[in-house]
């Protein structure tokens, strides 16, 4: 099984402080890998390394077999990995359609076209409508992003990452700020959308263990800069030590009592 995203002996040091210590990890097609762990454990650093935002002190990061250490967000998008953030980022004055079009234009390498009108580009517009529909935003195509509700802004943020037609998408706490009632709905939407959009793997950073238990194919727990565990959910939650270290209680899905 060839890995889509690979971390090989990744170490990141800030002076004397070791944020990540020889972390190795591989993510293959059709996986949804959740990265969990307490704050300050090194999740953010790992994610920044996996998405080429930071160069590692030692070790390698690979995407589709190619080294992506420190390549930066623009090149990352070009190679086929997208990232959606915890804090909502929008283009306040751009409409939903325009926001999605920004991503589609990048992905189809049309950005250096100076004289054609975006509004007249049928290919771009149909892709925009497609992605908007997946996330239920097709009724608000012309609404400026700043006028959307908080939940809609969140959807738009994730949708725009999808509009890049990425092969791998990294979701950074996608349900934070979303009410408990809506969390599962959002996750289901996103996972379905990913499958339909041809996304090959999802990396999820989450605190909500119920969601993690429900949707992951694999869970990677980070503690103090090292990998504590890298297992399928059933294995993960049946190990009392891991559960104690990372979770408060075992999520409902895996019931109480002996494994």
């Amino acid at each position, binding site marked *: 099984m060839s890995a889509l995203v690979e971390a090989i002996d990744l170490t990141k040091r800030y002076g004397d402080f070791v944020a990540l210590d020889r972390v190795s990890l591989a993510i293959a097609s059709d996986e949804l890998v959740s990265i969990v762990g307490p704050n300050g454990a090194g999740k953010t650093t790992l994610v920044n390394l996996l998405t080429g935002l930071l160069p590692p002190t030692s070790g390698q990061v690979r995407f589709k077999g190619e080294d992506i250490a420190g390549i930066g967000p623009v090149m990352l998008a070009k190679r086929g990995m997208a990232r959606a953030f915890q804090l909502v980022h*929008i283009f306040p004055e751009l409409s939903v359609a325009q926001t999605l079009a920004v991503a589609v234009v990048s992905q189809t390498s049309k*950005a250096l076209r100076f004289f054609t009108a975006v509004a007249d580009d049928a290919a771009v517009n149909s892709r925009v409508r497609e992605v908007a529909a997946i996330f239920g935003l097709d009724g608000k195509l012309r609404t400026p992003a700043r006028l959307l509700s908080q939940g809609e802004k969140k959807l738009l943020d994730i949708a725009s990452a999808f509009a890049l037609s990425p092969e791998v998408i990294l979701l950074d706490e996608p349900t934070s700020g979303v009410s408990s009632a809506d969390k599962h709905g959002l996750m289901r939407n996103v996972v379905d959308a990913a499958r339909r959009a041809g996304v090959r793997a999802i990396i999820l950073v989450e605190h909500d263990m119920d969601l993690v238990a429900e949707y992951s194919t694999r869970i990677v727990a980070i503690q103090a800069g090292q990998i504590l565990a890298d297992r399928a959910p059933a294995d993960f939650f049946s190990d009392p030590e891991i559960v104690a270290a990372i979770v408060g209680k075992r999520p409902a899905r895996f019931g109480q009592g002996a494994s």
Partner: protein
Amino acid sequence: MKIAAVLVAFVAVAALPRVLSPYHVTLVLPALAYSIALLGFNLLFGYTGLLSFGHALFVAIGGYGAAVLSSKLGLRSFEAILLLSAAAAVAVAIPIGLLAVRYVKIFFGILTLAFGMLFHSFLFKFYDLTGGDTGIRVLRPSLLGRAYEDLDKTTWLVGPFYYYCVGLLAVLAFVMWRLVHSPFGLHLVATRENRRKAEYLGVRVRFFRLIAFSISAFYGAIGGAILAVNTGQADPELAYWTHSGELVFMTVLGGFGNFFGPIVGAFSFIFLKDQLVGLTQYWRFWLGAILILIVVLFPRGLSGLVERMWARLHRSTPS
């Protein structure tokens, strides 16, 4: 509806020499020049979100380009002069841009101000090359190959030259319109709205800012060349930072959030200044006061006002 308004305005401007006295028509010429320069400036400011306090640098390059090419090198074709001056401006813009687009907001403004003043200093001090504070003469160029030698200066200015500039503005405005509505334009606006997010959506922020900067230089130089031909002289004041400030003033007066804002601003400013200068010797004071009023009360400028009134009109009448 908008297209109709634009066409009407265009025809009106083209018809001005028939209606106004030559004095007033010679006022419109700088307005045309500034309109072109500001279309370029606003690509950078309104669309890309970068405020340059050194745009006058490119206007000055255009002016001195016209001066040097016509009086020192004997080149008379206005088309050649425009192209060469604009090319020179772009050549200067690229290294400056490579440095400047790393910065945003106030640093970009200060850096561009510094480069503008660097050029001013050079123009002012190197008398042998640049004519010092007197500057260099600009000789009458030929338009599309025709020299119109039989016409005296004023007749030429309010006649062939005027129509030429109106045509030039129309062509350049059309090009800019296509530019801002293109995928490139969309990416520029994305960088203005949220630089980080734009990068994550694959927008090449620095590269595109550099391109926008270069295009603004191109337009600035053409405006400068027209200005210099109009006055017959290119002098260092073209590059002074307060001239850059006036360019920003004009753009905000007209409204930087609107494509036609800068053109409205250029025309309004020229006529406003003309009226004020005629009324009082303390016209700078009133100009400053008006700028304060706009900044505080009407930040979207004159075109913003028109848009608001238009919207109110549409709301009050049943559709």
